[in-house]
């Protein structure tokens, strides 16, 4: 009972001082807001990228064309070598005859042209289709395969995949850097906000000490003040996530650029992101305020 009474008082005091030093509080809150918006956008992008790279991974295959003069034993040999490569998840073999038959079934024109081809003058090549475990390593896997004897060409849609992965990695690094820098600035601003509160209440604090208030009682309002700054700072980012993402999702109908990039469904995704953003706001607020308390409130 007593604990909750004290907590109630702390929260009341904390709110009072947020508004008493409103300009500085506002600076802290704005800084948290900006930080959290960037955090939120980074998380949104990262999760979506992760989601659709996973989707892409399912479709992505390395296609291997063998030399025309490859014998059946050599095919078996290549198969064994491919299976030994770590990143190879599964593979399927199609002989040039099988491919020819398949293509003939697909279109009448092919059927007519290819009907005259005998096995010897079939210009098609035997192929392996390889699925990989980790799409990030697809390039080095492709290169390894290229070095195998009798392999003539290896294709995996390199340009697009490579570029996408590099772009996302770069974007990730930049956003991490920005978030860390912004968090530092925010913590600094919160420390100063709380410091001002502590100084403006110096007399009160010294009397509290004198009459025997415990350290917990003295510290708590300031810690809570930091948390309140964090919570107030996360309101706008959360609104942006909730309304912004839903609007974006509806606008694009769930896809970016054709069917290839699938967006994550807003529910419950936006609630999860909002939760993360709120927790980060509170933690940053607490780090700032407890640092200030430790530094300026000698208890």
């Amino acid at each position, binding site marked *: 009972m007593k604990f909750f009474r004290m907590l109630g008082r702390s929260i009341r005091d904390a709110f009072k001082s947020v508004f008493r030093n409103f300009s500085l509080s506002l600076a802290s809150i704005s800084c948290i807001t900006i930080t959290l918006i960037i955090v939120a956008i980074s998380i949104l992008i990262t999760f979506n990228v992760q989601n659709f790279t996973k989707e892409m991974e399912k479709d992505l295959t390395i296609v291997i064309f063998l030399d025309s003069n490859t014998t059946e034993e050599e095919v078996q040999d290549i198969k064994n070598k491919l299976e030994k490569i770590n990143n190879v998840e599964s593979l399927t073999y199609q002989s040039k005859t099988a491919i020819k038959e398949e293509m003939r079934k697909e279109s009448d024109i092919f059927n007519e042209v290819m009907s005259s081809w005998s096995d010897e003058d079939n210009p098609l090549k035997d192929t392996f289709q390889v699925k990989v475990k980790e799409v990030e390593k697809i390039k080095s896997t492709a290169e390894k395969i290229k070095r195998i004897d009798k392999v003539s060409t290896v294709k995996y849609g390199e340009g697009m995949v490579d570029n996408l992965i590099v772009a996302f990695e770069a974007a990730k690094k930049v956003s991490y850097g920005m978030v860390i820098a912004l968090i530092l600035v925010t913590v600094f601003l919160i420390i100063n906000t709380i410091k001002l509160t502590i100084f403006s209440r110096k007399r009160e604090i010294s009397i509290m000490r004198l009459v025997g208030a*415990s350290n917990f009682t003295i510290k708590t309002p300031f810690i809570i003040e930091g948390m309140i700054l964090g919570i107030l700072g996360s309101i706008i980012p959360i609104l942006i996530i909730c309304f912004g993402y839903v609007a974006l999702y509806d606008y694009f109908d769930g896809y970016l650029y054709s069917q290839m990039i699938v967006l994550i469904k807003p529910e419950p995704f936006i609630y999860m992101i909002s939760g993360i953003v709120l927790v980060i706001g509170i933690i940053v607020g607490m780090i700032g305020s407890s640092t200030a308390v430790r530094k300026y409130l000698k208890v």
Partner: protein
Amino acid sequence: MDLIRVKNVNKQYKNGVTAIYDLTLNIKKGSFAFVIGGSGSGKSTFIKMLYREEKPTSGEIIVGGINVAKLRNNKVYKLRRKLGIVFQDYRLLPKLTVYENVAFTMEALGAKKQETRKKVLRALELVGLKSKIHNYPDQLSGGEQQRVAIARAIVNEPKIMLCDEPTGNLDPERSMEIVKVLEEINKTCGTTILMATHDKEIVNKMQKEVILLKDGRLIKHLEKGGYEE
């Protein structure tokens, strides 16, 4: 029963000034003692060590069963809850009313509203200020402000009151009123009172226990007496 026991206490400040030399004395429960001596004799230092504002450089101090010299910073509040402390400059919160200033102690200790109300009103009655509970400190005379500070100190029913020149800013008449209030508290509540002062008139008139310091040394400790140098 000695409520305060001081044994071989020395106090040297960081700047090298030694304010107390080898002080040993005991104060009984229920006493009313004046701590007297010239300016710089160490009265404030002595009082500050009792409520653990300053730590003794060496020696032992026991206040109400608590070993003050060894008390850790985060346990100081336990000592303070047994004490009521009053200063020359009142130290009231200007934005709070008389009632709120006294209730501040109770709130800081997490007391319930009804209990707070009951005790605050009783304390204000004891110091004779029940009619001004809604005034702000700047609407009160110095003597009245000091009585608010005394009410704040006693509202939690401390065993000991430590007063550092509580009448220092008051004219003789108001000073006498304050000392009478303290005497009343001492008599009705049995609170042990220690008051540092250099007001000769008061000490002579009251004829109470006297602790005389000079240049940081205990010169005299009388059961009953007046002001002497």
